[in-house]
C-alpha cells in the first residue's frame, strides 16, 4: 500500500495551513475519480493519505485565494511507495512558487 503526504510551506520554509483565515484543502484523485479530501492539519500544515492501492493519483491543493486556485501534481504510485509533496507558496503574493517532490520506499 502506498502513502501520500502533502505539506504546505511559505517562502520562508514556515508552515502555511491557512490563507485569510480559511484552511487549505487537499484533494486526492485516483484514476481520474475524486477519491478523498481533507483539510490540512492546523499545526503542521500537512495532509496524509494512507493505504492507497497502486494506481494513478493526482494531488490537488485547493484554496480560493491562492494562485492557482488548484495546484495539481500527478504521479503513478506502485506498492510501498511514499510520495512526499511540498507545495511552496509566496505568502504575501499568495502564489505557488514550486512543488518539491520526494519519493521513498516503505
Amino acid at each position, binding site marked *: 500500500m502506498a502513502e501520500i503526504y502533502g505539506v504546505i510551506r511559505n517562502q*520562508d*520554509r514556515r508552515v502555511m495551513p491557512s490563507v485569510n483565515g480559511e484552511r487549505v484543502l487537499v484533494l486526492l484523485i485516483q484514476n481520474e475519480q475524486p477519491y*478523498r479530501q481533507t483539510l490540512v492539519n492546523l499545526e503542521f500544515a500537512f*495532509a496524509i493519505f494512507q493505504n492507497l492501492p497502486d494506481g494513478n493519483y493526482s494531488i490537488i491543493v485547493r484554496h480560493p485565494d491562492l494562485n492557482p486556485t488548484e495546484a495539481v501534481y500527478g504521479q503513478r504510485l506502485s506498492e510501498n511507495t511514499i510520495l512526499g509533496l511540498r507545495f511552496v507558496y509566496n505568502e504575501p503574493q499568495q502564489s505557488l512558487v514550486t512543488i518539491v517532490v520526494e519519493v521513498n520506499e516503505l
Partner: protein
Amino acid sequence: MKTTDEISQSELLAGLRYTVYSEGQTLKREVEAIHRVTVSHQLAQWSAKLAEIEKESSRTQPTIKPEESQVQVDSIDELRNLVYAENEKLWKEKDLTLRVTIVDGLAKWSARLADMEAKEAKKAAGRVEKERSNSIKETPEKDGIPLF
C-alpha cells in the same frame, strides 16, 4: 468520496513522522543561514512533539536519556551530521522502544542545533555588515567627497 475535516491520531503520528524526516532532509540541503535557522527550529519543535506522541502511543520511555548519552559534539558541523544521522535512523527504525529513545535524542540535539544555527546566522550577518561598512570606508574620496 471520503471527506475529513480533522486527521485522526494515528494519521497525526504518521504525518508527524514524515514531517520530521522531511524537515531533516530539507535541513541537509538548505544552504541559506536564515532558512537553516527556521528549519532547525521547526525540526526541534516537531521532534519534541513527536517524542511526546511516540511515548504516549507506545507507553514506553527512552532507554537512554540524551543527557546520559556518550556522544560528544564540538562543532556545528558535527552536530549537523549527528542530527541528520539520527533523523535517518528514526525514519528506518520499526521498534517502538528504540524509536522513543532516538526521537528523544533527536529532539534535544536538534534544539541545540537550532541555537547554534541562530548564533551562526547572527555571526554571518555581522560579517556581511562589517564588510559593507569597510567597503564604504574604502570608497575613494577627494576633499571629503566620495568618488564613484
